[in-house]
């Protein structure tokens, strides 16, 4: 069991990231948290503890412009997927603590025993991979085909030659396929938690 008391931070994250906390709190509420604001602040605190996610949070989501700061190692998509996973983890910890964990059909359950950054990173990656694969089979063939070839390292030009379409079509299918997959993930998560 973990608590919400980590090492002190130099500044108050809740005020430095007030809009982020607000967005995360509304997501935590949808995940079934009884204390969405607290869960959002805890997810933020853990993200600021991890050096890689911290730099990305500061750069992309900070209220102040990162004028001379170099770009973080993590791209924005990595950070958003991380924040989702950490928030879900925190909410499940909360539910585990108060003993009202709801049965969530089909959703893998985190073991809330170890929330060290590396372990958490692996758990988040596993959970993300599971839900993505569960939704992947449902997207259109053309989208799935180009995304599979991209996974295998094919370049747009190579895919275009293989499929007999032009590169712009491949690029369109990649973005539409990714967004369609995202919509299916969103629907699945909404179905899981509503």
């Amino acid at each position, binding site marked *: 069991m973990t608590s919400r008391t980590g090492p002190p931070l130099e500044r108050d994250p809740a005020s430095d990231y007030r809009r982020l906390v607000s967005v995360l709190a509304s997501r935590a509420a949808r995940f079934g948290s009884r204390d969405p604001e607290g869960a959002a602040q805890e997810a933020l605190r853990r993200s600021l503890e991890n050096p890689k996610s911290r730099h990305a949070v500061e750069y992309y989501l900070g209220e102040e412009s990162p004028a001379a700061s170099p770009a973080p190692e993590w791209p924005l998509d990595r950070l958003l*997927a991380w924040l989702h996973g950490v928030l879900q983890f925190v909410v499940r910890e909360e539910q585990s603590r108060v003993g009202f964990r709801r049965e969530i059909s089909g959703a893998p359950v985190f073991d809330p025993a170890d929330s060290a950054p590396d372990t958490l990173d692996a758990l988040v990656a596993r959970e993300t991979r599971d839900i993505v694969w569960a939704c992947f089979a449902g997207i259109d063939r053309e989208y799935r*085909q180009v995304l599979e070839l991209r996974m295998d390292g094919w370049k747009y030009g190579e895919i275009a030659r293989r499929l007999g*379409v032009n590169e712009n079509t491949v690029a369109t299918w*990649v973005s539409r396929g990714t967004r369609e997959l995202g919509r299916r993930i969103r629907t699945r998560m909404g179905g899981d938690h509503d």
Partner: protein
Amino acid sequence: MIEERLDRFARGELSAEESRALAQEALNTPDLFEEMTCAAMARTGLPDRRPRRTVWPRLAALAAALVVGAVALYTLRHSTPEPTATLALSGPPVFLAHTLDAAAQFRGAEPESRAPRAEGSITAVADGTASVDLGSLDGLAKGSEVEVLRNGTPAGKIGLDTIFRERARGQVTGGLTVRPADRVRVPAALYLRAVLDQIAALVARGDTAGAQRMAGLAAADPNLAVASPDYADWNNLGAMAALRGDRDAARRFYRRALQANPPGDARREIENNLARSGSAQ
């Protein structure tokens, strides 16, 4: 404007500065934040299956490991059977159903569907628009291109904009003059995908014999992998190879199925099929 940026975000093309600008907008718009989070999960949750590059300083260690591994494999192969074979499962192989999309069903669900064709002909030409006797049944979709063949070699392309089940039409590109009866060819990936879809439809209908006949078109094709078969495709090709007694091919297909990230239940069925194909040696 936002749609264009979201498309680029979905393709991983935004710079760090552009990403920050978009993220800042999303903080003011929860729905946008939600859409970006789910697209980010889609991007990061798909595995990177690119072949790993080996750097020179590691080559010696890798070579040593390969030698040790080869010796160990040789020893194992001469002392114990393949682990899966020890399960000694019996009975017929299990086919796996697809979640067929609308296009796949359109291509293959009707009992009297003809087999997909890799080649066809131009049936009419008018005002730069050519009609061909190939369609969605053969794997074509709006935006696909077919090659026009002259003396068996590609001479130009037709970009298709109207697709029916067994015919299509589109614009001839590259200034080529085409005539009725000219031969046209479907890209290998699309044709093979159509074959796999029809196999899946036949399996879903319980027509194993029909699927078996169709499998001969796909299984022997050296370009099969370009059609991006999924775990169910590979498993079903393996099951059909097992039914015709080709256990080596069956095991090869089952292993490809296991490499295609099947979900838990499907993985167990594939592993059982693999065990069956090895147990009767």
